[in-house]
């Protein structure tokens, strides 16, 4: 597949196109600025289904149900939402359900809101403790190869995989 380098501004569109090219059609999310392009693309895509969630853990079980029905999806969330998913990842883990999570990091490189640090720094250890494989992305060039790898690990090998989009990639929000 074409994983040629993408620019600092174009990686969100390229990531969406990559996921769609690999048959990801169900996008569940709690909004975050880091996911705004992906969410807008999904909402405008007549062949995609979007489900806004009240809390991130709903997406974990929703995507397990979608897998029972033969549909591939992704869970888009901020790192703070990882904490809301922990027990629901029991379902993913014990049932060996595929799960693709795309996590926009806060409490990370250049963060200016101190409240974001506890869960931001805790996100990866929590995910790993519950059996999710984390791939951290720091630069635009890494986005497409990592996304392709993650989709294959999730949907061909029944793994729970999270792409952690660092604040070095998405930029730190000013306060």
């Amino acid at each position: 597949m074409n994983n040629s380098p993408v620019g600092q501004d174009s990686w969100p569109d390229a990531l969406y196109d990559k996921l769609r090219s690999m048959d990801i059609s169900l996008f569940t999310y709690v909004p975050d600025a880091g996911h705004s392009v992906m969410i807008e693309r999904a909402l405008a895509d007549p062949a995609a289904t979007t489900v806004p969630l009240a809390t991130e853990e709903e997406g974990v079980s929703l995507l397990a149900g979608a897998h029972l029905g033969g549909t591939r999806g992704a869970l888009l969330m901020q790192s703070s939402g990882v904490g809301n998913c922990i027990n629901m990842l029991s379902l993913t883990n014990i049932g060996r359900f595929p799960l693709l999570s795309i996590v926009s990091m806060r409490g990370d490189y250049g963060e200016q809101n101190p409240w974001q640090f506890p869960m931001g720094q805790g996100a990866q250890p929590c995910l790993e403790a519950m059996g999710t494989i984390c791939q951290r992305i720091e630069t635009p060039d890494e986005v497409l190869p990592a996304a392709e790898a993650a989709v294959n690990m999730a949907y061909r090998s029944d793994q729970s995989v999270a792409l952690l989009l660092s604040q070095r990639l998405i930029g730190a929000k000013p306060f």
Partner: protein
Amino acid sequence: MAASQPAARAQTSFTLDRGEAVPAVVGDPDHFLIIAGLSWSAKDVGKLTGEAPNAFLMGGAMGGAITMALGLALAQPERAVLAVFGDGECLMNAGSLSTVGCTQPANLAMLCVDNGTYGETGNQLTHTAGNADLEMIARGCGIDRTLTVHSEDQYADAATLLRKDGAPRFVLLRVSDAAPPAYARNFDAVERKTLFRRALLG
């Protein structure tokens, strides 16, 4: 202790027998793809279906049954999907009713087996034994087709509502705190997932 704290093992006013009520309201389980919440709801559905491949039973992940059924309903729009779960499960993730209400899946029915207690942990009271009314919460979330069942003469109406597609439906079945029929269920989620998918997807 505050005066409003309910006694841990006070009785609810609910009287229906779940072993009779759940089969009466679900009817032929082969009509549905079924997701059952953990604990006693899983036993209800296990006993009713004999764990046929059209049923997936939770054994944990409390609060996930409604959205798991929603995901299945979105993936299989031509099939009727039924979520069966307890009041404790529903209260733990009541926000998922708002996600259903916003998504409006035409093919999703929900059956809340409400005994007002956490049965498996010793029948401690849930909030539905107090002031929480899950039918009103469902309606407030935009689920317009709802019914609370208090007596046997409502079973037929409830069964009809669960089968009436076009919009999400929510039936609150108020049962006593008596245990469900004995049933030794399969806890192997990988096996159950694989059987479910093979039967549905080929």
